[in-house]
């Protein structure tokens, strides 16, 4: 009897330890999964950064030394510089165009119920699903047809490229902005109307400031998408002109040195800086 009485608390303790053990195991498993996820996401990024400082012209492991000359090399390549400028121009134009089209579209989608609304919503996301090569070919043919019919010099023009880029940025702009407008408390706009603001004033002074984070996010997304686009742009760019991704591809056809890693690092840094600056003004984390 005496030893039975002693047994019970011991058994309880063992049980408690087992529970604690399984909790620790669970936490470890979660941490491991998270760490694996982060490695998968960040590895290419870290690798590219690392690579851009290798001194070997042909990438070998381990590198025989480190250098900054690839960064200097970028600026000797006219293609990279002019490609960057073109990409920047197209990206900004596509961003502005995307917003001009996306804001009214999103207002209508978020605020009005009409037949075919769901269909329209789906159609607007479709450019995401169409492979870039296919879209590129299709737009190329389309632009030829338009040029033949109207004699507008669309093919190979910057305007033609921007229009195509707007098409692929629209799904992002519309999705982000629709979410912003749908989450917006319309009584705020009504309050402005009640206080004497015309509908336009109410939209500019009450609605837009409130959904600013959504707009900045949409602008940033469309810029990044346009800036990095390769497949579609290949079909639409004028002979002799390049965007940055095309310049990188052309460079890769002849050489595989760390210059492209250096270019990528600059590009990542530039866009990252853009995001940080934007984040100072609006909390992007709230919408992304």
């Amino acid at each position: 009897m005496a030893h039975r009485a002693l047994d019970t608390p011991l058994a309880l303790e063992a049980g408690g330890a087992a529970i604690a053990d399984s909790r620790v195991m669970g936490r470890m498993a979660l941490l491991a999964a998270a760490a694996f996820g982060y490695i998968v996401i960040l590895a290419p990024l870290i690798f590219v950064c690392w690579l851009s400082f290798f001194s070997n012209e042909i990438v070998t492991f381990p590198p025989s030394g480190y250098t900054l000359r690839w960064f200097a090399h970028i600026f000797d390549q006219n293609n990279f510089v002019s490609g960057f400028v073109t990409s920047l121009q197209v990206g900004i134009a596509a961003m502005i165009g995307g917003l001009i089209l996306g804001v009214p579209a999103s207002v209508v989608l978020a605020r009005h119920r009409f037949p075919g609304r769901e269909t329209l919503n789906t159609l607007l996301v479709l450019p995401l699903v169409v492979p870039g090569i296919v879209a590129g070919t299709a737009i190329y043919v389309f632009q030829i047809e338009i040029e033949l019919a109207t004699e507008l010099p669309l093919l190979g023009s910057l305007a033609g490229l921007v229009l195509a880029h707007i098409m692929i940025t629209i799904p992002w702009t519309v999705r982000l902005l629709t979410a912003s407008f749908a989450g917006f408390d319309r009584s705020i706009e009504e309050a402005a109307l009640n206080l004497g603001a015309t509908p336009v004033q109410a939209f500019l002074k009450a609605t837009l400031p409130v959904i600013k984070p959504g707009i900045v996010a949409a602008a940033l997304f469309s810029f990044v998408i346009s800036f990095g686009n390769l497949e579609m742009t290949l079909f639409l760019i004028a002979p002799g002109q390049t965007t940055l991704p095309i310049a990188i591809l052309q460079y890769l056809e002849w050489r595989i040195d760390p210059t492209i890693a250096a270019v990528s690092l600059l590009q990542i840094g530039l866009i990252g800086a853009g995001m940080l600056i934007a984040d100072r003004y609006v909390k992007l984390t709230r919408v992304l």
Partner: protein
Amino acid sequence: MARLQLSGLTKTYGDFQAVAGIDLDIAQGELVVMLGPSGCGKTTTLRMVAGFVSPTAGAIRLGGQDITKRPSWRRNTGLVFQSYALFPHLTAAENVGFGLRMRKLPQAEIASKVAEALRLVRLEGLAERLPRELSGGQQQRVALARALVIEPDVLLLDEPLSNLDAKLRAEVRVEIRELQRKLGLTTIMVTHDQEEALTMADRLVVMSHGKVQQIGSQRELYEHPTNAFVAGFVGRTNFLLGRVESPGLFRSESGLAIRCSEAASTHGRKLALRPERLSIASAVTDADNAFSGTVEFASYLGGILEYYVRLTPQDRLLVQAPNKIGDPVHAIGDRVFLQWPAQASLVLAEDGGSTS
């Protein structure tokens, strides 16, 4: 400041009549409360006055002018929203000044009016705070100041207190009422809270199913409800079903013969009894109506005692008795007598909204 007249104001959505022909004349400086359950059309009516909903038929006249077709930004109404609808990116002072900036007043005048409005709602020290840095009660006062500062012809309050806790609500009720009186503002308030309505109103409009059920003072609604809906919505009521057998006698479906006023309409199908108009005792005294019953539930609420008394298998009545010294406190299971004078028996028609 102006007189507000609604005539035949109607709003239909397809087959659904949200507001079915409201006639209401609100005097300059009067506070009228529209009271009713959700979906009764009170908010739609308010939004028609503000200009956010365009009426299907009828007219709105403000200060003698027909404003039915005027867009909301040219109406000069001051609306306090249920959600307050403050501009989240503007400070309290900028929120209050918004309407004045839209009216293109000189900067200096705006500043002094804003300061005065904030002082009126006792928020002087918080002018530079953003809405999210203010408590619910403070936000509510910013919304009120923002609506007052434009000197509206009519102040519109859409359930302005429903987001405040009970204690604050009781305070703000009195504050708003005092401000409204002081400024002499013509005001419509919408609420589903009858206590709020009774405390604040000069006159009440009880609505149901898009129709006005009754317009009157607190006392008129409580003592002379025009139908069972109003009697049930304002205050607590016992209902007995039955019909008027002969002048002055109501026969309930359960067989009780109840004395009522001889003037009572013979079309009445419901008898309403206010719980505090019934008296409860162990023995019969002289009264028009006296029925024996059994106490089924008793609550000691301090100031009053509440009982549920079973008279017949169908009829259980709520009785409120003042807690006076010397009065017996009855317990569950006690045999008691319920008594009331004939004038306390209100014979009423069915709910106006559902019958027509």
